[in-house]
């Protein structure tokens, strides 16, 4: 049963990745968008008073959030065309399997965007991260998990509405307040070489958010997908 769940999820994720890989439209647009945000935010400060290093943690997370949001709608917009979602429901995949598959697909997509924009962030903002990379990767992974669990659930909802492109940010951003604020708080401490003890509070908040919202999204997904 459990292996069926994971194999079905893997098939769905692989399908989404394959579809995306053929055109790379969403991937390239999200990447270009991320680079643009990084570049524009560099100029959104008084360069004589605020150093680029000081705004760097905030910039990194605003960039990831905005670029990620562009990618989220894609997963279910694919299924809206030609009623593909009905086809997906007719397969043996259970709602949790569909959710997991879509979520993993989204996580890989956003992870790739993050992987490419992180070196650019280092380059543009001149932040030395190499010695702190493992810690930074951990925070990025945790916040991305929070982002994709709620994001996948909400995007499945909004693609069925009118104005879905506007609706997703409006519904999703309130849910991103705890993970993004925690991620920014931890990131600036990592970059400023603060001791781990100063980050554990925010990290546990982020971890708790991951667990609660992953479980909630997994359970609530059925109510979205079943007619």
């Amino acid at each position: 049963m459990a292996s069926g769940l994971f194999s079905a999820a893997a098939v769905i994720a692989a399908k989404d990745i394959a579809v995306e890989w053929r055109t790379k439209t969403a991937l390239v647009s999200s990447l270009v968008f991320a680079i643009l945000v990084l570049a524009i935010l560099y100029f959104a400060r008084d360069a004589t008073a605020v150093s680029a290093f000081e705004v760097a943690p905030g910039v990194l997370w605003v960039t990831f959030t905005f670029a990620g949001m562009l990618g989220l709608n894609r997963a279910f917009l694919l299924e809206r065309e030609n009623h593909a979602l009905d086809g997906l429901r007719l397969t043996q995949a259970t709602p949790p399997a569909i959710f997991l598959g879509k979520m993993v697909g989204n996580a890989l997509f956003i992870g790739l965007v993050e992987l490419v924009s992180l070196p650019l962030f280092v380059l543009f903002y001149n932040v030395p991260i190499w010695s702190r990379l493992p810690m930074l990767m951990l925070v990025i992974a945790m916040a991305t998990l929070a982002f994709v669990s709620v994001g996948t659930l909400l995007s499945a909802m909004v693609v069925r509405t009118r104005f879905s492109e506007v609706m997703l940010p409006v519904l999703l951003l309130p849910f991103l307040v705890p993970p993004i604020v925690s991620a920014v708080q931890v990131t600036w401490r990592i970059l400023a070489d603060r001791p781990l003890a100063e980050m554990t509070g925010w990290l546990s908040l982020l971890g708790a958010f991951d667990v609660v919202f992953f479980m909630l999204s997994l359970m609530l997904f059925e109510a979205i997908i079943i007619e």
Partner: protein
Amino acid sequence: MNRREKALTTARRGTIITGLALIGLAGVYVRALMFTPIERFQGPAQKILYVHAPVATVALLAFGITGVLSLLYLIFKDPRLDHLSASSAEIGVALSVVLLTTGPIWAKPIWGTWWDWDARLTSTLFLFLLFVGYLVLRGALTDFGMRARFSAVLGVLALGLVPFIHMTVYWFRTLHPSPVLLKPEAPSMPGVMLVTLLSAIGVVAVLYVGFLMQRYAVTVLEDIREEEAAGGLS
């Protein structure tokens, strides 16, 4: 009695309760302005507490009820639960507008600034925006079943979000007056002010019940009209 008559009766009862609450509200404010002493440090500005705190309490209660009813809807699938939770959310949003307006008016003379990123202020703002999103989502869905299920999912998620938002903004920093009512020791407020505050909370709660009944009845009537329109077409 058919559904329409039932809804109309609920609406009429709701109107009566709202009317009584409004009279009570007027009474509470006469008491607050004329028969409750002026606070020593804050002066007359403190009077706004008798609007602000009751509205805050009931707005949070309204959002909480929306969350609980959403959860119950997902279990029992009773359309009445959906109507009630949507009505409650709408009233919560309306009360939050009062809350977020009276707050800055008080804050200007006391804190010296209209707005501050204080913990409770920030949580309320995000909660308000979240429920505005809830109402927008409902407006964007036409199919009844889908609207009810989707908004219930959002309501349950919101219920899970509240503690996280609170922790986040609280850790960020807080400036809000510390709780005067709900704290382990006795309330730090003279008895005469406390009576005014508690009766204001009670009156606003009754007002909420009146609003809820009327809004619920309107939702049921809208439903009946939609069904009739659909029946007329087929």
